[in-house]
């Protein structure tokens, strides 16, 4: 029994943390917003590719790094912490493994592994009008999407930008008819969705830690009534609760990664538990940390919003807390026979 990052996982985490501290300060996150210098983002991803990030879950025989989901969680907590405005989850958890599972996509896979190409994805089968929204869709050349005919790969060249809360997510709307089939079996797709769900949860943990850190720093230096506002019990208790939410969600996300890595029979439960806890934690931490700032966090000039808006978006992606709790109700035999939206499989 050893439930913590082991030495290799800590090494990866520390490497990524240092890289992102240097390469992805808030100014780079801002560069991804409309009107920003998008070109600043490319070198960041190149450097991450240099240490094997895109192919983290791809077999070494196929040019990947050959690691498992416990490493993925360690990685994505850091990209979340940095607010990295790139489709990291989509590329690492979904695109690279699915391309690796499609023998006819070797060229594209190579481009993805080298960091030359970023791939987006949209696996929530909620489209009714023949189009889907791809996060970071304005940055990627192609996206993996679910179409009425099955999984597909679609060029993003003709995609239309769509305004959204987190400008750095650069949503783009794409017509599903332009997609070409991507042949992978159901099991691979299920795994991709599970990985993306846990990966998103991991980014939420990182985002939450960042929001809390920003806030702790601020309340220690901001004074009102002649004392630092962090000395007021109301602030202390709100931030203690924020830490509690994070500390009790984090292990569940790691556990879910471990379950996927080991093929645990309860993985479905663990995945939903992870996303439910992480979504809840991030939502409450965002709320609390804005409140503890007072007005200052209520402007886009202050950095906090870069992380809060990402958190609000990711809290909803791949099933929000309520949807995963409803799914858990089913798994625990507490079915109410009320339908719910969670992630659906592609139609056969």
């Amino acid at each position, binding site marked *: 029994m050893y439930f913590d990052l082991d030495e290799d996982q800590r090494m990866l985490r520390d490497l990524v943390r240092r890289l992102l501290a240097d390469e992805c300060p808030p100014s780079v996150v801002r560069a991804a917003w409309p009107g920003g210098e998008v070109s600043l983002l490319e070198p960041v991803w190149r450097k991450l590719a240099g240490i094997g990030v895109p192919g983290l879950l791809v077999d070494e025989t196929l040019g990947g790094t050959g690691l498992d989901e416990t490493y993925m969680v360690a990685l994505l907590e850091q990209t979340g912490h940095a607010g990295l405005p790139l489709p990291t989850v989509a590329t690492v958890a979904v695109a690279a493994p699915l391309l690796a599972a499609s023998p006819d996509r070797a060229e594209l896979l190579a481009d993805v592994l080298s960091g030359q190409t970023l791939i987006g994805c949209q696996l929530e089968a909620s489209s009714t009008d023949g189009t889907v929204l791809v996060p970071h869709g304005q940055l990627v050349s192609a996206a993996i999407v679910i179409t009425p005919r099955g999984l597909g790969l679609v060029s993003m060249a003709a995609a239309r930008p769509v305004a959204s809360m987190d400008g750095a997510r650069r949503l783009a709307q794409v017509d599903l008819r332009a997609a070409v089939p991507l042949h992978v079996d159901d099991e691979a797709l299920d795994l991709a969705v599970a990985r993306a769900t846990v990966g998103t949860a991991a980014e939420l943990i990182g985002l939450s830690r960042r929001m809390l850190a920003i806030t702790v720093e601020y309340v220690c230096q901001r004074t009102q009534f002649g004392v630092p506002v962090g000395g007021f019990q109301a602030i202390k208790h709100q931030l203690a609760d924020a830490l509690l939410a994070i500390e009790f969600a984090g292990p569940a996300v790691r556990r879910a990664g471990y379950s996927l890595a080991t093929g645990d029979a309860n993985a479905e439960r663990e995945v939903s538990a992870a996303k439910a806890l992480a979504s809840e934690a991030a939502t409450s931490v965002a709320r609390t940390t804005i409140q503890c700032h007072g007005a200052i966090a209520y402007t886009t000039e202050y950095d906090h919003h870069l992380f809060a808006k990402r958190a609000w978006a990711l809290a909803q992606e791949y099933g929000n807390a309520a949807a995963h709790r409803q799914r858990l109700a089913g798994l625990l035999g507490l079915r109410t026979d*009320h*339908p719910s939206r969670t992630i659906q499989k592609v139609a056969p």
Partner: protein
Amino acid sequence: MDLNYSEREQTFRAEARVWLEANVPDPGGPSGDTREGFARHLEWERALHEARWAVVAWPERYGGRDATLWEWLIFEEEYYRAGAPPRITQNGIFLLAPTIFEFGTDEQQDRILPRMAAAQDIWCQGWSEPGAGSDLASLRSRAVRDEAAGGWRLTGHKTWTTRGAFCTHLFGLFRSDPDSERHRGLTYFMVALNSPGITVRGFNRLDGDEGFAEVFLDDVFVPDTDVLGGVGEGWRVAMSTTGSERGLSLRSPGRFLSSAERLVELARERLADTPAAVLDRVVGSWLDAQAYQLFTLQQATRMAAGVDTGAESSLNKIFWSELDVRLQQTALDILGPEAELDGPWSKGFLFSLSGPIYAGTNEIQRNIVAERVLGLPRK
């Protein structure tokens, strides 16, 4: 106990409803907190004024209808029910005007109120400073006496001024006695923003609209006629205004009843996709909006009977602001992945987060409730 409106009140409601239904502009377009949106919203404000709906509670001679408290609440219900836009004139009408009615000279009332009602002058508030938020009494912007010119010279830095980049006038507190501390030695001034020495820099709210501004004042002359309520009396004068800000005036139940209705509709449309626990939160928001309405009716009954509800306005402020956040968050949880799209619900959510902060954070409000309503020690 009688929850029926009088015939006069019902007539008033019917008249308001007919006019609003015919005149409320289409939703959409830039918000009133952007430069282009502000211009468009000015047209709406002027239409309201022409039809005498801009300031219903004011005396007729200033453009109002002498409406009672009940009529005012009715108008607010109808206003939000009709989906009419937020009032860009609200800081003048709901914060400054009550203070002018209470402390202003006849000359000030006659000069300032009609132009405010007509949206010719648009007022913004200058309370907060970079070092003085919740702790308003620590403000440092100063007013220096200019006896020769018959007025004062203001210097300092105000911030979090809502729509400050588009407004024409500012009201706020300045330290007129340099040796004073905290609540003493402050004076309430009204300032034209085109006065020499003023620089305004707009900045963005959480939703990306340029809803705030910093106002820099450098030796700005203000004549004695623009001092409100006496030199050195600023704190007392201003506190009557923050009472209005927190209490009934800015957040009438109509707004939340209407939001709750929209939330219930959204949930009905997406019933099959919505987890039952989220539906329960929809019910909770609807319940809270009802509770807020009933609390307010009770409070208004007491106010109409002349009872001073005083520190109770902190209860209103805490309740409506947190109800609003819960309600908007529930909408996002119904929308799921669509929640992040730029739209009325995501805007509404971001906007709601300011409620528990502005006009005295809810932490301060809870202190007030504990100390002044429950009587706990100030420590």
